[in-house]
């Protein structure tokens, strides 16, 4: 997995609550059997009109945000389905970090498996960064996972909380499956115990 350490980039403001996974990547794009190539369809129904033309008002279509690497969004981001196509599309577009007051559980988990950092901050701080992001491409925000800080374009520093295990995996780019396979003895002993206690399983 790709590491996440530190990132300085343009932040796109998306002040919408309950952004669901159908908005992030509509179902017609879930028919792929690959992980790549979904970025062009990120936010497809908001980003393109019925004829497939770009909607100029949509944030990621504006010239200043076309290369955004950070997304600042509203409460309960990523609610809805478990589709990992949502973080795949976000990453494929080039966004590596999301800042929001809260996330839906499965989406939040999925981000970490793909080298995306989802940051949780109180509403007031998200509001402040949203204002900063609205300044456009000259307002570059810095996210530092090691120090758990976000620095706005005018130098204001915000701290954020992060689970130590998830932080470690992101910083090191660790593969979960490899880590778990190191515990194969523990899994085997669980299985032999379970075979006696719950043989019907």
């Amino acid at each position, binding site marked *: 997995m790709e590491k996440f350490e530190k990132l300085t980039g343009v932040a796109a403001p998306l002040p919408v*609550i309950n952004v669901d996974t159908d908005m992030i990547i509509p*179902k017609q794009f879930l*028919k792929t059997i690959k992980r790549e190539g979904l970025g062009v369809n990120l936010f497809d129904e908001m980003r393109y009109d019925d004829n497939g033309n770009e909607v100029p008002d949509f944030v990621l279509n504006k010239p200043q945000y076309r290369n955004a690497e950070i997304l600042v969004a509203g409460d309960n981001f990523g609610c*809805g*389905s478990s589709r990992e196509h949502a973080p795949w599309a976000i990453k494929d577009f080039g966004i590596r970090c999301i800042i929001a007051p809260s*996330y839906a559980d499965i989406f939040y988990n999925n981000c970490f*498996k793909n080298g995306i950092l989802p940051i949780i901050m109180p509403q007031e701080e998200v509001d402040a960064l949203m204002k900063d992001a609205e300044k456009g491409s000259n307002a570059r925000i810095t996210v530092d996972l090691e120090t758990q800080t976000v620095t706005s374009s005018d130098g204001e520093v915000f701290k954020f909380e992060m689970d130590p295990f998830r932080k470690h995996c992101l910083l090191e780019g660790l593969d979960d499956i490899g*880590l778990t396979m190191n515990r194969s003895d523990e899994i085997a002993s669980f299985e032999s115990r379970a075979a006696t206690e719950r043989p019907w*399983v």
Partner: protein
Amino acid sequence: MSPKTLYDKIWDAHLVHEDEDGTSLLYIDRHLVHEVTSPQAFEGLRMAGRKVHAPDKTIAVPDHNVPTTPDRVEGIKNEESRIQLEALDKNATEFGLNYYPVTDIRQGIVHIVGPEQGWTLPGMTVVCGDSHTATHGAFGALAHGIGTSEVEHVLATQTLIQSKSKNMKVEITGKLQPGVTAKDITLAVIGVTGTAGGTGHVIEYTGEAIRSLSMEGRMTVCNMAIEGGARAGLIAPDETTFEYIKGRPHAPKGAQWEQALAWWKTLFSDDDAHWDKVITLKAEDIAPCVTWGTSPEDVLPITGSVPAPESFSGGKVEAAKRALDYMGLEAGTPLSEIEIDTVFIGSCTNGRIEDLRAAAEILKGRKVKDGIRAMVVPGSGLVRAQAEEEGLSEIFEQAGFEWRLAGCSMCLAMNPDQLAPGERCAATSNRNFEGRQGRGGRTHLMSPQMAAAAAVTGRLTDVRDLMAPVAEPA
């Protein structure tokens, strides 16, 4: 021993390893797999030269993008869908999974097939690359959706890295009124908690109204726990559960049944267990519900009116404006005056036999209003066969419904069943998000009875009006 919730008990029974910071490795008893969220996981396995750790605990069934029209036996026309289905076929066969292909009468929506075949049992951990895995919580199983990377993790190791959620109790006291169903309970709860109210929690549903529900009703309630943001929904197993399970193909038999039953009977939350959050609703206060907006929390009793965005606060004001604009609705319009174009009865929320019986009961001797497109999509081939045996399919067809083959169908429109832009649908599914049933499509969520009533009148309708005894002509 300190008192535990049902969630605590299942968690503890599946703990393989726990780090000091609480990061845990949890053993997975059942892994359900479908065609949309699994191809990349199997590809990952192959690239790393890994095997499926426990193929006997892995169940594969195609559901999301299979067409539901009878011509599907001739092959699937959409190339991308066909490739995904072929990939599942190849993966299930090569890795030796329990597999129900499209041609098998047991094929259907993964969350209907699992319980139907007795794969889902109390006290198990059940995962699937699908958020509505919450459905299986109705059996007192810890069941939740996972992403594709986690699908690969479970395939390779039969475990999942988890941190423990908090405990939330949702108690529904008293008795449901006529015309009010499990769907109305679960919608009403989301109306109170909001779509993020359960975030970080596992919900256990309790109370007399929950205990009185059949297994199918309980599955409907737990199915939508995810729409309230919860990781999972649970209902403690009881005689209703055991009765449902007994004799199913993969349920334990003989001495193992007795051994299983003895353990299952210990699966309840202790009286003085700790709850991080408690919500109580009175069943008598719950009316037949419909959604008006583009989030499952946008729900009201059918007797209500479209709310004014200004009646909300914070980010919800803008969200409600956007929702009304998308839905083509004006604040103040009585919900029962909203005209619909389409009716969809089906999905993992409401595609079981009792759902079809309830809808057929309303449709008996009635007709779908002229100009309304209406379809019933049974949740599995076996549900379909049962409905045909009971004469329900005849009632649906005589009323003017299309009688389809099993699949996810119009719940998520990954298959040919879709809404056109602006088309308004009374749906028994679980999500009313923008574009969910087709780009520009407008979804109102409700129970099967309510959807049947809407089909008859052509507008959102209080099903209780159609249930009232018809007066004899003078």
